[in-house]
């Protein structure tokens, strides 16, 4: 279950986040929807680590292989008899390998980025067009109620559930809505539109 509050400005949105956290929602449950980026911590704190660059690197290796195969492999598999001259050319293979490595790096970056962002999404999600006009959306993911409070050392923020999680989901939602309204939310979005 998700909930999205729309705020006019950063200050009120940040206030809402603060209150939500105080209420017992974890940072991992809260996200901000903005049309221009804010440094981490201005609104919410998120996990700054990302893995897509490993994916990029893997793609780069694949690209190097592809480039080498394209330049050297085809020449070797489909040789043109070139009068006692070497079939595979050294420098050109390097150049083609380089270019294809870069190509795969670039494509890998974009693909990896989208994979990590999980875009495009599989279903519809909460959104409000005002966000593009400078409004700030504060989204909160509400877990099914009754789960144990567990936010220990060995857990990643995503796995950690705040103290409020023991309450039933509806109750969580009500409270969150209330907090956001208090903080100055213009409206609440509960229906997935995007």
């Amino acid at each position, binding site marked *: 279950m998700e909930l999205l509050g729309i705020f006019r400005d950063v200050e009120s949105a940040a206030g809402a986040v603060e209150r939500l956290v105080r209420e017992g929602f974890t940072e991992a449950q809260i996200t901000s929807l903005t049309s221009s980026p804010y440094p981490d911590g201005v609104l919410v704190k998120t996990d700054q680590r990302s893995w897509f660059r490993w994916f990029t690197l893997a793609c780069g290796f694949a690209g190097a292989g592809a480039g080498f195969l394209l330049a050297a492999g085809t020449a070797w598999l489909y040789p*043109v*008899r*070139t*009068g*006692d*001259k070497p079939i595979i*050319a050294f420098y050109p293979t390097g150049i083609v390998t380089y270019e294809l490595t870069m190509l795969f790096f670039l494509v890998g970056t974009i693909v990896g980025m989208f994979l990590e962002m999980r875009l495009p999404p599989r279903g519809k999600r909460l959104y409000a067009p005002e966000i593009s006009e400078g409004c700030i959306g504060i989204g909160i993911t509400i877990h099914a109620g009754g789960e144990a409070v567990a936010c220990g050392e060995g857990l990643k923020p995503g796995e950690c559930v705040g103290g409020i999680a023991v309450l039933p989901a509806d109750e969580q939602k009500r409270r969150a809505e209330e907090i956001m309204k208090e903080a100055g939310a213009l409206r609440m979005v509960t229906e997935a539109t995007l």
Partner: protein
Amino acid sequence: MEKMTSPYRWGMVVDLDRCTGCGACVVACQAENNVGICGKREIAEGRDMHWLRIERFWVGEYPNVRVRFLPVLCQHCHDAPCEPVCPVYASYHNPEGLNGQVYNRCVGTRYCGNNCPYAVRVFNFYSHEWPKPLDNQLSPDITVRPRGVMEKCTFCIQRIRRAREDAEGEGRKIRDGEVQPACAQTCPTEALVFGNLADPRSRAARLSRSPRGFRLLEHLGTHPSITYLKGGGREHV
């Protein structure tokens, strides 16, 4: 040339002391190889199709003026600048040391033509026509090149091929002098000598070792298959 995979390495010797510049080779080449007939306009535009040309240079001033003739045809370089630049292998090196050109593969980038320091590659800017019945003269052994491809001297590969077929049929190698390109065949002064350079006893190989020998634009490191023998002219008997 690390290892020889062919018993032949074709080459030519051009004796500039014998060459009189008469032009017989030029016509022989054109006749043998279906080279297009270029009108005045085409040549005025610099689109002459001759595969073999005789360059004429004036040296000195009247009355001590001299003329140098230099027959220039494809040098069949062993490190040919035209070969690596062709993106489609239309220009390639043949196991017999020839610099090949495959017309139907050519896409017409003209890169080889630019990179040939000898400017012996000619491009079919026009689709050449042979008004009937002049087309009867076209040799069936060679493709009539379409427009948009590069063409050049092949050392009359069709003759070499036929000689090889004959020799293979008889289970022997091609004999020295058995095959000659049209230009060497017709040269009245025998200034052009063609032969197998891999056979050190062939006439061409012997002549190519002459102390008079030099290669055209040798400093470029193209290692041509054609050896020029210095022309006389200034020295006396």
